[in-house]
């Protein structure tokens, strides 16, 4: 939409997004969402404007706009909406409308990598195991942790935990926080050797199908290892 052109109302399909079921047609344009939104005003957008664009069926404009990607889906808008419109859900759904190669930044690329290799970084299994054991060795050098080791694929453990990819990349030190707690609490825990990725970027890109695949892989690990409890720090 450019400022100089008029939009032809007759050409819009107002029912385009009706089936989404987020109740956006009930919006009374009170503006409480806009005043609660931390991203209000960026690019001249606010939640109320987006909701109305959906009600009118301004499909191209919502897909092209970057605002649905600037939104953090914090949910403050939904929290205060008197008509109980699922605004943040609607934002995510708008994201799903974009062609995947137009998804901003690395988010879809990371997701693609995860779908292909099991993790966002395409980190090979051997390297992953090496890093885990390397960190475990460092912990074992600390007093009180002499008998520490990292349980990988331990069948029948009490807890299975996923790992955020940065913890086996640039922030390996942060693994130690979790592991020390497990050790002192004498927890019976394990990490899977494959499909260990905790960050599910299908959530951010509005890709339900990919989300399902990533989640089901974790479930698969739990079934395989016969672990009843999942700890998923994401």
């Amino acid at each position, binding site marked *: *939409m450019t*400022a100089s*052109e*008029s*939009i*032809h*109302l*007759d050409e819009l399909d*107002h*029912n385009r997004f*009706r089936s989404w079921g987020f109740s956006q*047609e*009930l919006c009374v*344009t009170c503006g409480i969402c806009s005043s609660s939104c931390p991203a209000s005003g960026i690019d*001249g957008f606010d939640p*109320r*404007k987006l909701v*109305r*664009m959906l*009600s*009118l069926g*301004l499909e191209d404009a919502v897909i092209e706009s970057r605002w649905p990607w600037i939104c953090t889906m914090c949910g403050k808008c939904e929290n205060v909406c008197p008509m109980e419109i699922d605004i943040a859900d609607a934002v995510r759904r708008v994201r799903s409308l974009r062609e995947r190669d137009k998804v901003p930044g690395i988010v879809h690329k990371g997701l693609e990598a995860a779908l292909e290799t099991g993790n966002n970084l395409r980190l090979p299994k051997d390297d992953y195991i090496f890093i885990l054991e390397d960190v475990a060795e460092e912990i074992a050098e600390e007093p009180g942790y002499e008998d520490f080791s990292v349980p990988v694929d331990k069948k029948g453990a009490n807890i299975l935990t996923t790992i955020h990819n940065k913890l086996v990349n640039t922030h390996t030190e942060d693994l130690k926080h979790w592991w020390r707690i497990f050790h002192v609490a004498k927890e019976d825990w394990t990490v899977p050797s494959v499909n260990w990725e905790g960050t599910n970027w299908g959530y951010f890109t509005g890709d339900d199908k990919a989300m399902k695949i990533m989640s089901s892989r974790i479930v698969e690990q739990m079934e395989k290892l016969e672990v009843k409890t999942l700890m998923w720090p994401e």
Partner: protein
Amino acid sequence: MDKKTLILGCNRDARQIAEELLETDGEVIVAIPGHSDDTVLFDDLKAVTKADKLEVLPAVGSVSCSGSVGCFSLTFTGNGTPFTRTVSSIVVADDMLRKPNFALYGLSASKGIVSLSQFHEMIEAGFDPAREKLSGKRIAFVTGLAEESNPVITEDVMRCALKVQQELELQTYIFTGNLKVAGNGLEALYRQTKKAGTIYMKFTETIPDFQVNDAGKMSITYRDEIIRETFKFNPDLTIIDEALEPSAFTRDLSKNLEIDSGPDGFVQSDNVHRATVLTNRNGIFVAGFSRCVQTERGRQADIGNVALAVHGLYQKPPDSMVGKAEIHFTGHCVGCLTCFRSCPYGAISLSPKVAVNPQACEGCGICAAECPRFTIDINVPEGESISQRIPDRENKSQKGDFEPMLTAFCCTRSAKRACELASCMGHKLPPGLQIVEVPCAGAISRQHLFSALSKGADGVLVLTCHKGNCHSERGNEYAQQRVAQLTDMLPQIGFELERLAYKTLASNMGTEFAEMINTFEKTIRELGPSRLK
């Protein structure tokens, strides 16, 4: 008094009121205004009522009226010779007019641009989009732009839109200013229309631009205030809303029955004392669409309230003369008709001679203050006339500090109560203050004001109800005029202008009362004692 009531009106409200009054064993005359000769609405009622209890007068032209409550004499002109009826009370319950708002948008009626009422007719005649050759399927309603709408019209628009959305399966748009949903069930209806698919365009900053081309096609250009972009729209049918006004018959009645009307011509003034169905005249009641623009619930309340008011009137014991105006004809009344013209309650009748109807009189005293021959008294116990209440303020040997003697005229309904409230609240009032209570500020004559000064008051204050809140409608304005007239004279008689002041307040303004008095006292303190001391 006879339980005989005249109802002026022709609609459902008039019929229901007639029914209510007949049930309490009253007699009813229904006068159907000339713009409707439809007596059908009352046929079933007539069928079950004794002939001497209910009379229906069709196609009444104009009505003139004399007398007051208990004995209204009405003369009707219709198609034949004029005829008269005498009743104890009158109820005005006519229909409203709907005036299409085409002109507000520079439009006129055409095939593609109709009023709300015209659209109703189209629907009733079986509106079929295909048959009407509407090429597309988009209908736009325009309401509440340029001028504020109201819940009656808003409900109408929304119900139409809902019907069109659901039954005719067309896309509806409502271009609106403020959406007036202050009526039973209207917010729920609004939600219903949205769920059905109606799209609302709300305007606060701009008004859409309506253009009709030579072929009669409507083009609306507008700025969506939420999306902040310009849109263009070509609806297939545009429906313009209507303004609601009292009927010409109702407007005429205002003059002929001498009842005050409000800002829009409805025959009830915007005065707190006219709550529910009262007018300024005892025995004349107004209901439904003659009273104001209101929704169904309001109309039902009016019907009940009229029934209660009329019933209450007939149950009342005869009025005593206390507090009522009495005209003395000890050679003083010259028939100037000043009292007749100034009475806000229409309580003075002229034949056989000028007299006050005690049941219509509210004892405001405006007539007594206006009478140029001082021939009217308000009936009060001995020694209690206003003149006799004005206190002597001669100095009682004041040594040293001057203590201002203030005489404040306070009307019973507002200032007197505010004074009591001020004392209750513990406000400090000047010791030199004395109150002269009056039934209405309109009873304060220039003689009273002059008397207060000549009896030694250093300052005289006149405190009345706020403009528009006087029970006598104009009593406070009379008082203000008289204060102004006397103020003009003050320099000639050697008094400072500030010694006489006029202020308004309400009965719940205790703090403000104290402030006014204390500020006035300071002013008088600076001026020093009256020149008469």
